[in-house]
């Protein structure tokens, strides 16, 4: 059973708000880079990047990160069934203001894996986290700096973030 949490319109304004919040939080004098995690985070990162470019007319670098190699639960089953997608960070993170983007933050383990991976790409000036949905239930001490929507749902419900690029429509749904 699907319940709409964010409509397409509210989804778009949430991304816009996050983009504005980020611009207020950075120093325009220093280079900015945005890295999206795995599939959905990448599209969100691209949208935020294009919003930011529109707002303050700065060029920013966009990267794509697959955290599979750094997962703490990488089993033989997962290795043999899930195809690792290509990480593409064609720039050094050294000295950059880095924004990491993902669709849903829950246990914090994916972000922990992302942080372990990013260490290898150079020392950033700082790293901030932007997520579309924060649904609590942390298992690691990870905090999001920019949040589209805070949700607290019980374990039986799962969150689906839909994106035009993949699903044809934008939105956030909870599914039982």
């Amino acid at each position, binding site marked *: 059973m699907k319940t709409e949490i964010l409509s397409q319109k509210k989804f778009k304004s949430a991304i816009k708000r996050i983009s504005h919040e980020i611009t207020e939080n950075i120093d325009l004098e220093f280079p900015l880079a945005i890295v999206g995690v795995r599939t959905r985070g990448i599209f969100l990162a691209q949208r935020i990047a294009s919003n930011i470019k529109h707002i303050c007319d700065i060029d920013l670098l966009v990267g794509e990160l*697959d955290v599979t190699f750094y997962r703490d639960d*990488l089993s033989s089953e997962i290795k043999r069934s899930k195809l690792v997608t290509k990480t593409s960070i064609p720039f050094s993170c050294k000295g950059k203001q880095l924004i990491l983007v993902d669709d849903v933050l829950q246990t914090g383990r994916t972000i922990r894996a992302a942080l372990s991976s990013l260490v290898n*790409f150079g020392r950033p000036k700082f790293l901030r986290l932007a997520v579309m949905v924060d649904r609590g239930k942390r298992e690691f001490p990870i905090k999001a700096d920019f949040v589209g929507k805070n949700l607290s749902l019980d374990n039986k419900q799962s969150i689906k973030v839909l994106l035009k690029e993949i699903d044809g429509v934008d939105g956030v749904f909870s599914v039982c």
Partner: protein
Amino acid sequence: MITKNFAKKDLLSISDLSSEEIIFLLNQTDSFREVNERDIKKVPTLRGKTVVNLFFEASTRTRASFEIAGKRLSADVINLSSTSSSSRKGETLRDTARNIEAMATDVLVVRHPSSGAPEYLGRELSCAVINAGDGCHEHPTQALLDLYTIREHKKEFKDLNVSIVGDIAHSRVARSDIAGLLKLGANVTVCGPSTMIPAKAECLGARVTTNLDDAIRDADVLITLRIQLERGGGLAFPSAREYANTFGINEDRLANANSDLLIMHPGPINRGIEMSPNVADGPFSVILEQVEYGVACRMSILYLLSG
């Protein structure tokens, strides 16, 4: 329910793999290629795993390739070669392997002069076994990197014309390449002097010719095999010069070849015998790319088999 794209404990041959498993391995290789392009070429996936390279035959590139692949995955890689191993003291293959396994080895990479040795080890040992070349049987990791290299340039295998030239009878590379190419829908031609074409060659599934011009015409890819002088290759033709004149790949023989022909060689090259230096270093040659992709392919295989 997770569907496994790769279900085997060991990688023993290309013939054992389904075309889906081959494609999955090739797709996986892209991510490892990216790791090899980074400044810090390391991912932690095989951290704490032990990979033993057990080579009973000389090898430079395959062993180095597996060693680099394992190390980039953060594995502990040990190299054992037959000259320094206890097989010289008369220890059986089984005992050597069991001793290595007793030291909690996770992956055993084996190259052996006897066909079937890796399969035997795969049955005896519980760790994963990777065939790095057994006798005249198969060299699956070479075939995988050859397939990857071809895919990089030609994109599709269906109806691609691939010619393999050289000592087909004694070449495990040829057998693995033929198996892989046929599974993926390519058309394969094998070419060499009749002394180097095995009996009942048509059973390989490839078109057979002893005429090099015939093999080159219409070919999209040309895989040249090394004349194995150390393996009695010298008995199959009167002299290296005669082989070079009849079957050597040089610019003259390529005069009527397709303009986008890909020239490949598993290495090491006997320059001036099976291939002229101009061709080896020329614009059609992707020989060094094969080596580059070989590391990524082997990383992909170690990643999938290491449990």
